[in-house]
């Protein structure tokens, strides 16, 4: 029997707490609690287990329970010069995975959905289910980890995940540039960690080996008026999901003040993005998925990934 099928007492306790009947929801740090709509009815609130189960820096993977704070995870990774795609904005690992929002420096650290190698969750009927595997490359069976990432806990309640980690770049520098097309900044630098634009100023995160960073900055200086920045600008509260080309004309697309992630498409704005109509056939698949995974609708009742 492989190690995947084994389950530990902590996860069994969590499964017992979730139970087999009655509405139930997991609360992590509550940083995105309203996302997907408010809980309806009288869902019992449970907490996911906490703790880093196994961290192998040499293997670049970490097994971590869903209730662990992202701060604790990042602290442990930083001790070995590593980081991961999960954002460092507070909250829990499980919350970050089921919300699926990427980091500001997503171009450098990768996306949450690409970082989740294995999930272990409690199903609507109270069973512990494992999907994926604890290795960096895997096409063994259907991709349950992708389905769980960004699912807002509507298909299963996450107990534990295996995440891919990344080496932290040796050098990172935030720079600010005025009156320059931010798309040019993105094109000058081979692999920027982030390029941000508020309609007037641009910020760019240059990272890598020190001499490469120096060379990139020199190339930037030849094309734009750049100054060192302490970090990224403050981000407005609402998240817009756009294509990169729409984000680079956020001044025409987005209402109010904004910071656009150039080359990525995410825009933070002072106003909320209007609700998008889902593709009707994809919505049918998603409805069937919900019904097959949670026939009685007991997991995070009222939440929907389409809003």
């Amino acid at each position, binding site marked *: 029997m492989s190690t995947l099928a084994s389950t530990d007492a902590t996860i069994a306790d969590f499964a017992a707490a979730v139970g087999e009947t009655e509405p139930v929801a997991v609360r992590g740090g509550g940083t995105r609690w309203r996302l997907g709509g408010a809980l309806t009815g009288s869902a019992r609130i449970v907490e996911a287990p906490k703790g880093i189960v196994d961290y192998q820096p040499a293997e670049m993977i970490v097994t971590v329970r869903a209730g662990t704070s992202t701060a604790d995870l990042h602290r442990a990774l930083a001790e070995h010069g590593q980081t991961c795609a999960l954002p460092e904005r507070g909250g829990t690992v499980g919350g970050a995975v089921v919300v699926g929002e990427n980091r500001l420096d*997503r171009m450098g650290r990768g996306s949450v959905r*690409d970082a989740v190698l294995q999930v272990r969750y409690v199903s609507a009927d109270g069973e512990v289910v494992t999907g994926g595997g604890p290795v960096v490359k895997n096409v063994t069976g259907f*991709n349950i980890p992708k389905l769980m990432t960004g699912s807002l806990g509507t298909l299963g309640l996450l107990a534990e995940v295996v995440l891919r980690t990344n080496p932290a770049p040796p050098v990172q520098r935030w720079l600010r540039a005025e009156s320059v097309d931010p798309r040019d900044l993105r094109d000058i630098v081979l692999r920027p960690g982030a390029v941000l634009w508020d309609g007037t100023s641009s910020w760019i995160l240059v990272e890598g080996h020190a001499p490469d960073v120096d060379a990139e900055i020199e190339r930037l200086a030849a094309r734009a008026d750049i100054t060192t920045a302490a970090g990224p600008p403050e981000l407005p509260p609402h998240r817009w999901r756009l294509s990169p080309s729409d984000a680079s004309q956020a001044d025409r697309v987005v209402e109010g003040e904004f910071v656009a992630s150039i080359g990525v498409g995410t825009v933070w704005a002072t106003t909320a993005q209007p609700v998008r109509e889902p593709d009707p056939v994809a919505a049918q698949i998603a409805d069937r998925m919900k019904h097959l995974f949670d026939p009685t609708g007991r997991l995070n009742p009222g939440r929907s990934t389409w809003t």
Partner: protein
Amino acid sequence: MSWFRRPSRPADPLLAELADALAPDRVRNDGAQRSLTSHDASVFDGGVSGPVCFPTTTEEVQAIMRIAERHGRAVVPRGAGTGLAGGAIPLGAPVVVCTGKMNNVIQIDLENRIAWVEPGVINLDLSKQLRPKGFHFAPDPSSQQVCTLGGNVANNSGGPHCLAYGVTDAHVLALEVVLPDGQVARLGGLEDEPDGLDLRGAFVGSEGTLGIATKIAVRLTPNPPAVRTMLLSFSSVRDAAQTVSDVIAAGVVPAALEVMDQRMVTAIEAYVGAGYPTDAAAVLLAEVEGLEAGVDIDVAHIERIGRANHATDVRLAGSDAERAALWKGRKTAFGAVAQIAPDYYLHDTVVPRAKLADVLEQVYEIVDRHDVLVLNVFHAGDGNLHPLLVFDAREEGTLERVHAAGAEILRASLEAGGVLSGEHGIGVEKQQYMEELFTAADLDHQNRLRQAFDPACRANPGKVLPMGHSCADIQALRAVPTGVWG
């Protein structure tokens, strides 16, 4: 004379409807065509193919799905047929949908750094179109000269350069797919975090069991300004494997880390003369890319780690020609084995990278015990092993020994904490091993994912999930409908 050769409307109602929906010459039911589509590049026995369709549009794929549904037939998508796990083998005389004629690059969108392509576009052709524009498509499976992007999506294909860039899944943003009921769904999107469940992520790697992708938005990767290719030689496979583990552990992320053992190197040298040392027990082909200064730092780092692991020689390709020669050796590895024996069975498992050396030692021990010859060439950086068992199937009892050795290699990989497949998929090859990795509940949930797309189980039934966990009626797949002969 072309009018004379034009096929007339067939009498069989299924064939007639398909011919009406497409064109008579794009629906084939002759023995030669059905024989071609009855198998893939694996060692597994072929199935029985029903009519073979060559659609050119999404609407035609929709029509095929609806006609097949009316006639109670399953549908099996097919790209170039290079799969190694039997994923494209038709079971129960399904309608086979060859995507090869849907081969247009629809749009190259440099602003969004994506390209919309049809599923029949060949992997390498896309990169050739993109290179002059400063980009390429990162996944580069060994079959990239012939394999299609639709097949890459179905198998979540990898390749040597996926170490740094990730496999196909990381490079597919959106899909237009035709579901088995004929409806068209748009999955994913050009946004970084599209709304809703990640159905795109569920579809990629589903081995044709969820529907047929008819348009694919792929991510374009910028060509790196600097590339360095190195060849490190070792007097033991363990030293090469340990070097790989140590490079990963040091936080270096090379573009590729490929190991070849002595028998493989010898075969390659006899075949193309790539300049590999045939006296080394193993060689490590390492490539780093990025900016000028950084790649030199990485090269020095890899060399130090290699020397610490007793590398007997460290060579840096001094020119593009030398680089190309080093890669030519690696890329022709599977052609090279044909000189050793007529048949081969290429395995594909993944183990934790720290266990590479141990599992390889077990692989050598297993094949010795079963009196089978093994060559090793693999994506070491991902922990992705590819033991290549070579044999002559005409020798009695050989195939049984090959399968017995293969089963033990799989189990050794699982015991090391690994998985069944890194890039070839499950197909019909590894279905029976799924229960050794997953519990009944795990497999039940995988089947639910599948049913959400294909409630009637009509897309490539009988694959991936083992009997008893799949919604497909396996018995029905073994039977052949009336009027169809093998």
